[in-house]
């Protein structure tokens, strides 16, 4: 009984370590593929469109509601110390450092990691990946590299847009519901926001974008057989991308803002 449980823990630990090893190997191959020719510009351009541009609505909507709710909460919290005036600057710092990149990243993960895993998984299951190989095309260069590069470059831009929309959401609530003066709110936002608040969030965005596309491609390429295999790959990609984003966010925050 006890032995069985220990063996079970041992087995799943081994599986986890092996999975991590394969993941790291896949990441190394992806980075090598990004930096070695041939480059597929059409694939890259279409990845920019589907990953970046078409994610704008979902990132924008997430940001505006988050900024608005954040303003209400900080007002409520601040009023306990007669510090309601901090609302504009805390909204700005909270959005740019944490909520913009993390919530934006999670929304992009839901949208993009799933669709990449489903698309590549279907290609794998219907032998399209094998067909690519027989047509002298390396799937890592043709499929993975353009998507990962596009996500790494566009998610920071999505984060920047999300930051601005989130701050605007806070501004709407601050001036409309909490009685802030419009000019004072804006001045407060700008005066207390530092460049590093924004840049650190954008760096987080780039890391999250890289992880999202990488995980989508990894699970797609390793999809099991049949529709069930693709379904499982898609689900695993979203779960893994989300958990990795949250873990990476903690590590990056440690790195950027302590010591």
């Amino acid at each position, binding site marked *: 009984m006890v032995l069985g449980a220990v063996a079970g823990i041992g087995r799943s630990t081994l599986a986890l370590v092996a999975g991590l090893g394969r993941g790291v190997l896949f990441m190394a191959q992806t980075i090598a593929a990004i930096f070695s020719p*041939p480059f597929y510009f059409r694939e890259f351009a279409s990845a920019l469109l589907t990953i970046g541009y078409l994610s704008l609505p979902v990132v924008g909507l997430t940001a505006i509601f988050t900024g608005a709710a954040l303003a209400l909460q900080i007002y409520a919290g601040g009023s306990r110390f007669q510090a309601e005036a901090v609302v504009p600057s805390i909204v700005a710092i909270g959005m740019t450092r944490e909520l913009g990149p993390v919530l934006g990243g999670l929304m992009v993960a839901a949208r993009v990691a799933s669709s990449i895993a489903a698309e590549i998984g279907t*290609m794998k299951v*219907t*032998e*399209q990946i*094998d*067909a690519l*190989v027989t047509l*002298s*095309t390396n799937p890592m260069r043709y499929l993975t590299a353009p998507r990962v590069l596009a996500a790494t470059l566009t998610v920071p831009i999505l984060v920047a847009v999300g930051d601005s929309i989130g701050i605007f959401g806070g501004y709407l609530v601050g001036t409309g519901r909490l009685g802030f003066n419009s000019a004072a709110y804006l001045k407060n936002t700008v005066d207390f926001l530092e460049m590093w608040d924004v840049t650190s969030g954008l760096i987080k965005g780039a890391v999250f974008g890289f992880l999202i596309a990488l995980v989508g491609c990894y699970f797609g390429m390793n999809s099991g057989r049949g529709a069930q295999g693709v379904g499982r790959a898609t689900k695993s990609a979203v779960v893994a991308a989300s958990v990795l984003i949250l873990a990476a966010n903690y590590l990056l925050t440690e790195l950027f803002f302590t010591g």
Partner: protein
Amino acid sequence: MIELRGVHKSFGNNAVLRGVDLTIPKGESMVIIGGSGTGKSVTLKCVLGLVKPDAGSVLVDGQDVTTADRDAFLARFGMLFQGAALFDSMTVWQNVAFRLLRGSLKKTKSEARDIAIEKLRRVGLKPDVADLYPAELSGGMQKRVGLARAIAADPEIIFFDEPTTGLDPIMAGVINELIREIVVEMGATAMTITHDMTSVRAIADDVAMLHDGVIKWTGRVDQMDSSGDPYLDQFINGRAEGPIAAVR
């Protein structure tokens, strides 16, 4: 020349290939026959390096496929997949011209399109299918687009996995003739898998029968009827009784 020497391949507990030995001379047409699920497709994939054999070696012109330069190696091959494996995000002509639109064989777009339309004509498809997507075609049409893609860059070695399944008898005849032409006129080496005995007689120089993970019989196509091999006899005459258990 393609040589398989003692090729073994298992998937989990399922030992599919158990020592396949086979030689396909240059410029000849080899047809592989055998029951469903005996590992014919896996054999082709082993030669292409899409499936890694557990043991044994595959040599193409004396060079081991695992040590060869992959790109140069694959540039000489064309492959028709059993399920066609067309890229569903691209139109028919872009599928056929895939190799001609990128890489070392890159041509201008209009040249590539012209070649694609010519190859489509050779497999009996009209130019107006060129701008459709694979999902808009019937199964037999997809198969023929896959065939056109396999031959688009005039490869030296061509693999056809069931080229005539899903085609009507007349179209099957057209495809058999095309494969024969490719071997005779272009001097290509061909390896074809088929269940269609009419096809076997039309396409093959040599025939090999795969059963129980090994090549049970191989020889010239005209020796096939007088082989005296009970497995081959049962197979080519389509009998339910014989050494091959039909109900498993």
